[in-house]
């Protein structure tokens, strides 16, 4: 089974994030960048499927040259090769631009399955799997917490608030996975040392035949008008125990619809 995993480099979750005027793009220069944590689940699932059914895992990443470190982590975890889509024209792309660039890259790859993380921790749109499925005209299954491949078809569980819905699907397909579908492995030392020897190809938009007018800030269908920081967190509520504390905590939790 040939699998492509789409990954993104994002700003470290713990870093203090800054949005820069005039177009409110995230300042990625002044902080550490890492492999999108949700993508680790996608990479892990792809590597497990490969280990069970054979084939190869290709990492596909759109981003600046510097995003190679995120790609290398995916390779260290067990992916076999990588394709980077790097082009200055891509800066400021929204979901459509990203989907066009990635689908352009996918057109040149052989795959049975495309796996993504549920969303990136920075933009958090979660739209990319659907956008890719639309452009590629493939079935899309999102928010999966279980994937099984048997007799040429895929059985998956789609996570919902109440439980899960089971789906069956033929290949090829586009899937996104949630945190908890697996426990991503720590890259092995062998994997880390070997990651650099794995093939890593970089292509720009011209090579992929993607129209530069439809990507980047210029081609974006959406525009960020302004941003506002969330209001500061309110101080917590202290309950002194005068004998009724337990009752008041229960009432509080019930009031918040937690219990």
């Amino acid at each position, binding site marked *: 089974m040939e699998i492509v995993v789409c990954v993104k480099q994002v700003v470290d979750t*713990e870093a203090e994030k800054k949005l820069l005027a005039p177009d409110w793009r995230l300042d990625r220069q*002044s902080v550490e960048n890492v492999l999108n944590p949700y993508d680790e689940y996608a990479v892990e699932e792809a590597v497990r499927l490969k280990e069970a059914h054979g084939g190869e895992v290709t990492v596909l990443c759109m981003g600046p040259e510097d995003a190679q470190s995120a790609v290398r*982590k995916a390779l260290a975890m067990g992916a076999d090769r990588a394709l980077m889509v790097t082009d200055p024209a891509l800066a400021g792309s929204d979901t459509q631009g990203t989907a066009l660039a990635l689908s352009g890259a996918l057109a040149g790859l052989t795959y049975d399955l495309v796996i993504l993380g549920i969303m990136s921790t920075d933009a958090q749109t979660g739209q990319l799997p659907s956008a890719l499925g639309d452009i590629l005209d493939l079935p899309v299954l999102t928010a999966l917490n279980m994937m099984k491949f048997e007799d040429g078809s895929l059985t998956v569980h789609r996570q919902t608030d109440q439980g899960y819905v089971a789906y069956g699907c033929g290949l090829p397909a586009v899937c996104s996975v949630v945190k908890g579908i697996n426990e991503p*492995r*720590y*890259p092995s*030392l*062998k994997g*880390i040392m070997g990651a*650099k020897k794995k093939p890593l190809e970089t292509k720009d938009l011209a090579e992929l035949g993607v129209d530069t007018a439809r990507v980047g800030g210029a081609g974006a269908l959406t525009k960020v008008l302004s941003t506002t920081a969330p209001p500061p967190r309110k101080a917590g509520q202290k309950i002194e125990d005068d004998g009724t504390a337990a009752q008041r905590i229960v009432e509080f939790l019930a009031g918040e619809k937690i219990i």
Partner: protein
Amino acid sequence: MTVYKAPLRDIRFILKELVHAEQLVDLPGYEEATPDQIDFVLEELAGVCQELLFPLNQSGDEEGCHYEDGVVTTPAGFKEAYAKYVEAGWPAMACDPEYDGMGLPKTVRLLAEEMLSSANLAFSVYPLLTTGAYTAIFKHGTDELKRAYLPRMVEGSWSGTMCLTEAHCGTDLGLVRTRAIPQDDGSYRVTGSKIFISSGEHDFTENIIHLVLARLPDAPSGTRGISLFLVPKFLVNEDGSLGERNGVVCGGIEKKMGVSGSSTCVLNFDDAVGHLVGEPNRGMSHMFTMMNAARLGVGMQGLGLAEVAYQNARAYAKERLQGRALREPRYPEREADPLIVHPDVRRMLLTMRANTEGARALAGWVGLNLDLAEHHPDPAVREEAGDLVDLLTPVVKSYFTDHGFLATNLAVQIHGGHGYIRETGVEQFVRDARIAQIWEGANGVQGLDLVGRKLGMHNGRLLRRFFHPVAAYLEAHQNDPLLGEFVAPLAKAFGRLQQATARIAQQGLRDPDEAAAVSSDYLRLFALVALGYMWVQMAEISLERLGIGSSGESRVNGGQATADAAAASVGDPKDVPFYQGKIACARFYFQKLLPETSSLFAVIMAGAAPVMALGDEGF
């Protein structure tokens, strides 16, 4: 809740800019150790430390190890974490590729040991002991022993121990009573009792390989009659499978001040099958080939605890609102100012940080020389590097671990009452740090090693390996106006170190007590100068990177070093505060910490008399 993030930025600075670790890749056997690869390895290990090991640190301390009927159970989560650590292949890091090791430089392992110690010292002891045992077998074992035992130890599925101490002897191993009787088949039967054996029994691995100091029947008395034996917990069959249980049983574990997640065992050997490692009666010297590496590792334990203590103290000092800055409120919109505004809190934080970063730099330098000593094609370079490592090993062990204890105490102090209660988690750092001053040779013994063995070795050749580069640096920069503020105090301290060395050499020949009575003070003086040598270079690099020329001018625009100019010079804006911090810390070091050399000098010059005058019965 405690916090920890591996100091990768600082490590990168030390490796790339200070010690130029890119030269490692030119050494035979280290072809793959490019700066990029080393970065990647340390980054991923940082993830393991932060996400896997650190969350078990406090719970492991609370729970400790359990003992029942010879079986030791480690704290909840430890066994699973070890399995993941092994699965990812970390035990193989710096082991020889011939036995399935990854052959990474010792520099990397040393810095890795700091991170592991910060994250979870108790856990880190298990793999550290395996590394020690691996090294002794690798250096002195027969090919047969190596083939039979090393691959599984490198893999981590078997662990190792070092069995030295007995109830009546710790520092003085010449008194060892455990005996080994030769058998017709070339093996030995080992009988005796060992105490304080770290990782002596646990539930991590299917087999444990004990390295045991014992006496042969005809052995001379004292340390020249001690041999080294390999005694597995389970005998190993010809085909590598595990056979019968050997005659070694854990008789109990100790309750300790700290590192309670690390099992400290009584091991009883009763007619246990053992194999001689190396030559008969040469056990002490064989043990010492790995002991030096282990001492550097213990130094890194002190450093690791100092680092994690600093990170927690810094976080607390920034968020805890208490009192007001004396001149005027610095954060008037808040209920009070955070602790960080208070000069005495800053003093404590900077004391921790300047020592920690200086020590880490020294570790990087020693690590690089470890690798040069083992891998450089030129024997002269190997000798020089080896000399420097030998000389600085007691300094690293003793000063780093003393600093670990002092820094963890300062972290408690900054936390106030919250630091003293268990829940906060910082008092654990103090208790854990304490052992590093004791094991692998108590710190007093390190002082004796420095003055009694290392100073005089090869007619002072080891000493020259350190004195010469320092003297050359001072001479080359004596008229540098930009570095004057650092070079002048370092030159003064270095002069005192030279004078103190001469005194100890002269007086010590006449009366060994003269050297011994000041050995700890001398080691500390030595360490302060060594860290000063690191700090002056770090300041030089940082000034250069910020584009600051002499008299504070910017080399970029000829004017004041504006923020923009600094950013332009450094290239990456997030690096500006890093280098500015380095310079501020260097100033703190030279003005606030290095002056301790004055009092140490006075103490050393006062000699042995004040220490020795009182008769034993007078105490």
